[in-house]
Every structure is written in C-alpha cells, then in structure tokens.
C-alpha cells in the first residue's frame, strides 16, 4: 500500500494580527518574523495516512511538497512524524504557479513515484484557502475524488472513508486508487513526534525534483485559466464606532435601538 500525502508549507496562520503585513505592490504577504509551518489540514491529512498505515500494519507513506528550499523543514517534520519518504518539487523552477499548475506538477511527480493507492491533500491551504488543488489533481490523474474525509480504514483492497457533510457523516467505500482531501477532526489531531525521530529526521537528506527530473516544461504548467490575475491584495480594515442611543423612556430607547438594528440589516 503506497500512500502519498501532498503538503504545503505556509506562513504561520497564528501570526498575531498586529504583525501581519502585505506587500500591495507584489500582491503577497510579507513574511517578516513569521514562522513557516505545514498547512494545518495537510498535517491532518498526514495524520490520517499515518493512522491508516499503522492500523493496516504496513505500507509506505511518501510526503510530497511543491515548495522552495525552506520546504525541506516541512518535509523533515513529516519524516519525524514517521512518513517513510519525502520528495520536494523545486518550486523555484516554476515561477507563478496557480492552483492548476500546482495540481499538474503534483501529478507529474506522482507519475514518477511508485503508483499510489491513495493520494491525500488537505481540505484547503491555510494561507489562500483555495480548496481546489485536490480536485484538480484528481482530474489530472483521472482518479475519483473524495472530499472532506476525516478518517480512513482499509477493508480488503478497498478503503473505507469517513466523510463530513453538512448533515452529518457519510461513509464511502472506494476501491482506489483515488485522491482524497482531508478535513480536521478530533481523531486526526497531528501527533507530536518522538524526540528520537525528530533527531533522525533532522539529519535526513530530502531529494528534490525539478523540470528535468519530471520531464515537464515550466512554461506549460499553468493551465487554461492562467489568465486568472489578482486585482489587488490588502488587509481589510475593521473600524469601530460607538453610538449612544438616547430617549426619554426605556421603551423609547428600545424602539430606537430596534429601528437602528433593522436599518443595519442585522435584525
């Protein structure tokens, strides 16, 4: 059983709001003093894969990341949590990737890897929250896609996937190979690695693949929707206003308050 978990390294989303800056010119967030972490749902995805492998009593997990040099840390973290292998795709060779380009690049890497029985993605990335790479990747690989999975079990050759819906839970059986996106749940809180594993992971060399290894052209990656362009990027301003509702009597004040709220469309 080969499980591949796609990870993204992002800027720490728990950065205090006061420390968050964006470069409106370049239309990107400024890293500043923020740390880089594995996108939260991707960590959940890794945890689901780890639990699946451990319960099945065997199998291999490969962590796959399209990212810059710094992404090695994210992959080492995955190794310390006991993923078996890790591969980085050199993002630096593919400037201005969009979601479609990322999916195509991941697909190229997956074709080069030993065939995967299940490919895991996080529900959405913790920075842009696009939530489309998983689906695009399934399309690219021409595999079924199961979204919002919270837990996975092996049943013979098939996988039993527990899926979150608006109404409750759905259990899906799928023969695989398939692509799934994982959502967070109490049962897939990412584990904290053992220190020994941490230290081993620290010394681990992480192979990196570029256009040459994958046999693709950087210019061809972004798809038909490459025309997608950011108009602007900014931090919404939150403003506070204070109004004192006057009035003779309590009833009058209440009536005026109700009116105000109705005018603001909150009632």
């Amino acid at each position, binding site marked *: 059983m080969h499980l591949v978990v796609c990870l993204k390294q992002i800027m720490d989303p*728990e950065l205090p709001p006061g420390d968050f800056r964006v470069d409106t010119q370049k239309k990107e967030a400024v890293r500043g003093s923020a740390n880089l972490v594995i996108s939260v749902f991707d960590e959940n995805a890794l945890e689901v894969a780890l639990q699946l492998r451990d319960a099945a009593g065997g199998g291999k997990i490969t962590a796959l990341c399209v990212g810059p040099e710094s992404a090695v840390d994210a992959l080492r973290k995955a190794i310390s949590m006991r993923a078996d292998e890790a591969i980085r795709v050199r993002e630096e060779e593919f400037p201005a990737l969009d979601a479609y380009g990322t999916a195509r690049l991941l697909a190229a890497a997956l074709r080069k890897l030993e065939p995967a029985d299940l490919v895991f993605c996080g529900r959405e990335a913790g920075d842009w929250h696009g939530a489309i790479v998983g689906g695009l990747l399934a399309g690219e690989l021409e595999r079924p896609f199961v979204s919002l999975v919270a837990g996975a079990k092996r049943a013979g050759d098939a996988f039993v996937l527990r899926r979150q819906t608006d109404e409750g839970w759905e259990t899906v059986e799928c023969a695989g190979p398939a692509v799934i996106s994982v959502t967070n749940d109490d049962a897939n809180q990412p*584990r*904290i690695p053992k*220190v020994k594993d941490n*230290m081993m992971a620290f010394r681990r060399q992480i192979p990196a693949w570029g256009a040459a290894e994958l046999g693709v052209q950087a210019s061809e990656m972004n798809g038909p929707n490459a025309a997608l362009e950011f108009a602007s990027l900014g931090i919404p301003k939150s403003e506070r206003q204070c109004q004192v509702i006057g009035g003779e009597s309590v009833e009058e004040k209440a009536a005026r308050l109700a009116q105000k709220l109705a005018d603001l469309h909150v009632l």
Partner: protein
Amino acid sequence: MTPTREVYFNIKHIWVMYVLFAASLAIFARGWYGHWRRWRMGQPTERTGPLGARLGRALRQVFSQQTLLKRYRAAGIFHALFFWGFVVLFLATTVVFLHEDLGIHIMQGWFYLVFQSLVVDLFGAFAILGIVMAFGHRYLFKAKRLKPDTRDDATILAVILAILATGFVIEGLRIELTHDAWAAWSPVGRAVGAALAGGLSMEAMRGLHRAVWWFHAVVVFGFIAWMPYSKLRHLMTSPANIYLQNLGTRGALQPLDLEKAERLGVSRLEQFTWKDLFDLDSCTECGRCEVNCPAHLSGKPLSPKALILDLQKYMHGMSIDADRAAVDADSPSPMVGPIIHEETLWSCTTCRACMEQCPVMIEQVPKIVDMRRHLVMERAEFPDDLQAMVRSLEARAHPYPGAQASRTDWMAGLKLADLAATPDAEFEVLLWVGCAGALNKRNQDVTRAIAQVLTRAGVKFAVLGREEKCTGDPARRIGYEFLFQQLAQQNIQTLDRFKVKTVVAACPHCFHCLKNEYPQLGGNYTVLHHSEFLAKLVAEGRLKPDGGAQQGPVTYHDPCYLGRYNGVYDAPRNLLGDGQGAPPAEAEMSRANALCCGGGGGFSFMEEKSGTRMNQNRAKQLLATGAETIGVACPFCMVMLEDGVKSVAGEKAPRVLDVAEVLEQRTRG
C-alpha cells in the same frame, strides 16, 4: 578503689551471647548486602566527594537535627530526644566493647562515673521520654501525615521502648544486688532498682536480673538483625543520604546529552542513578512531603511520599538478576504506567515543597521529571493541553496557543530600547520580559510597570523584543529536554550576540532557568529577578517610594521558583508598603513553606482534571490574612491567584498586584 563495674555481673555462659550476636550481625549484613546490590543497579553519578565538605555539612545537619527542629517543633523535639539517646547509648556500648573485649580499660574512673553512668542514664531517660511522646503524637493526637500506619510502626516503637526499659531494670537490679557505691551517678537506674527491691528477695532479684538481661540481649540482637528489613533502615540510610545530598545548583535539572544518550528519560528502575535508588531506601515515611504537596492537598493522584514508597516497594520486589540487557526503548515500561501512573506524573507542579520538607533530603522532583522525559520524548505521550502548548513552543517559541498579542504590543506608548529594532542601542541591563509578560493581557500591565519604574530610576535598559524566545522552562519541566535545549541555545546565541551581561528577569521561571540552567549550556550572565533589582534600586536611593497608603493591609505570596528554588524571600516583601510601615501579613504557609498556586510544571497550560483547585486552596490562605492587596512576583501566580481569589471571594476580592506594580504606584509622586 577505682570506680567501675563488672560487665557481665551475674551472667553465666556468656559465649551464648556472642553466638547470638554473631548470628544477628550475619542477618544484618545479609540484609544490607541485598540493598547494596539493588542500589548498584543504578546508573553512575558523582555524589560521594569531596569527603571533607560533605562530611562537615552532613554532620552539622544530622547532629543539629535542624530540619526537624526548625519546622516541626513537637516531632522535632522527640526525634532529637531519641536520636541523641541512641547516639549516647551506642557510644556506651562501644565503650563496653573496648573495655571488655579489646582489653582497653577505659570504663573506669571519672569517665565511668560521668559518661558511662550519669550521661548514659540521663540520655536513656530522654530516649524513653521521646518514645512516649512519639506514641502520643502518633496514636493520641493522630498526626495525619503519618497515615497510613503500619504494624511495623507500632512494633518499632514498642521494641525500642522494651530495650530502654529493660536496660533500666537491669541497671537498677545490679545496683541493688552489688550495693553499688556509685549508685548516685545513675539516678534513674537507682530509682528503678529501689522500686523493684521493695518486694523481692535477693534470690528473686538475682533470677530476675539474669532473665531480664538475656531478654534485653535477645531483643537488642533482634533489633539489629531486623534493621535492614524494616523502616528502621533509615537509622543508617538517612544520615548517609544526607551525606550524599546534591551539592550542585539547587533546583537545576540535570541536562541530557541528547546526541549521545541511548534513551531519553527513565522508564525502568535501573535507569535511575544509584543515588535515586538510595533515596528510596532512605525514606522515613514521615509524610512531611505529602502534607505540603499542593497536588496531594487538592486531591490529585500524586503524593510524593507514596511515589517514593511505591518505587521502594517495587525495587524490593524486583529480581536483580533478571536479564535486562535486551530491553530497548520501545518495549513497554514495567514502571511508568503500572507502578507510577501517568496521571501521577502529570499532577506535579514541580513546586519543590516536598524536597524542601524532606528531613533526609530525598529528591522527588528530578525523579518525576526523569519519568516525564520518558513519556514525552520516548513515547511522545502527554496530556492534550500540553500538546497544544508544545506545538506553540515549536512553531512560535511561546507557550500560548492562539495568542493574539505580539511580543511588542506591551511597549505601545513607551519609549524603550528594543534591540530587535535598534540593535545598536546602548544598555546596561537587559529586561527579560518573558512570554507571559509579553503575551498575557494582565501581565502586560506588570511589564509596563517594571519598565516605568526602571525608567524612573534612570536605569539604562533594553529589551529583546521579537528576538526574545521562551526560555524553555515549560518544556524542561514537562520533560521535553530536547525542545528546552533548542530554545535555550537560540536564546544564548541572541544574548551573546548583543553582549548581554546583566539580565533582569520579570518572571521567576525565566529567572531560575537563565540563572541556574543556562550555564549548563554555556550561557553565563548575571541574572536578577525584577524584585531583587528593584529592591536594590530602592536601597541605593535611586527610587524613593512613599508609604503605599493606597494598598491598605498587604500580604505576599512566595512564588516557588523565586522562594524555594532561589531563596529570594525578602526583596519582594520590601517593595510592598501598606502606608503604616508594617511588614506584609504572613499567610498560613509562607516563605519556604509557601503553598504553590498551582501554576508551575506546565500546569499553567493544563486544566486541572481532578480534585479541588490548587489556586483556590492558596487563595483561601491569602484571603484569611484580611489583606486588601495581595502581592505576587510571578506572572503565573498572578493569573492563578487573581482567578482563585475571585472565585473564592467574588465581588469583595482584594487586588492582586505584582510587587513592581505596587512600587510603581509608590513612586509616582
């Protein structure tokens, strides 16, 4: 005629006594040999030298009986009585041995009269008095800390009493039978003899003397033989344990060499050091640790006494010869879990009250942390709340998951030298803010107050701003040595980069860590807690506080890591003022005996899942002083006690202020 006495007066077949004695010594030696083999299972550690320094210190502590006399008047007095009784009786026996068996005739003349008769007689009587008091303490007043009571305890007291009492009977009868010319030198013995002589014939007295003499001998030999097999062990192990005490920095946990260590932490008994194992056999079961333990007092599944005794029992039941070589780190621990439960280990605040109280210097906290190290680093198992804290420490270098503030928020409106922003700023001291002081809302006020007071005193100080990271204290106390060392090394690099010499830490946990534990990793600075530094500024006249009338009556809560760990008790008290010039009222349990607020050892980041709330227990003691202001000197105490005081006293709750805030108010004028 030279004063002396015939040693074996009225006794025949004396060889029988020697045979019995030899047998009892053999049993005695066998028992100790078994213990010795068990201790030797432990890992090496240096605790035996330097002889002179250790011996001097130990003798002073043992012979003065200081721990007991200082803290526990009644128990201290009776323990001292029979301790000294025993020492004198032991010397007297040695004198008999030298005199009779080695032919060194010293048991005569004035020495016989003054020491061997009078002193021995009186100390024997003291020892009896001590035993009677101990009986009373244990069975009439029922000291709670001595529970549960075992049959051993009663037997031991009874045997000692029997030895002492029969000793006097023998002496008294001998005096009567020999018409001892020096009887006046043995007043107690003579009185006993006179009382017995009243109704007995000479012949009967002779027979009785012989019978009691043999009985006495048999009981004494039995006592000797039994010693290594019972709690009486401590007669020998306790003084030895005091000799073996830690002479290193108080409260600094032993660092682990993470690169070289084969295993991280302790999961099996033999992975403790031999000194840890020796500790287990030194426990006198006095229960002093337990009655001062905040976890035990609040009904958590931890008692430091039970922890030691459970390990002791486990050690005694262990087969020493079992092959241990094949054990690897992943095999389940026979000790952590089955013998010492995980919840027990997670109930400790590392407040050190147990170690402070233990009369024989048993070291509970390092053992608890060693087992936590195993749980955290080998098994990666810890309570959920702590996982969140650890994640935050790893990703953001502070232990507050979800913190909205940044490390510089508290500085808003203050003009400060922030080295992260202006690396070339000149400064004399570095103010170490700490994560709580920077990120916790209430404690930001305290940090601001400290900065204001320092500015008022004209101190040239700087802060690290965004460059400051958690000292690693919470990681180290929960056993995550790896993370501690990572954080500490990063901080040491930063401190060295800015050529920091003097650090004023606004948190006792940071203070302890920077001062006593960073040197282990090569970080050497002069470190002061803010209360010490501010008290110094006041003493030097750089700050002139007013009386502090707005505070009203004050009391003070000693933070564990400032008081017990570092002996700083007076500096923070000196910053408090009530307008009347009176010292702060002392709560029940204060200074070295202070009850922990429940915030240490990771507890500030954990929910208390069982028992009563530790912070409320402490709040009640502080409220009982009637103070209107409760002074604290630690950001964790601040949070814990504000909450505790409010939930106990509600609307009428007194203010909880850091001593720096009080000083700030007192220096506005």
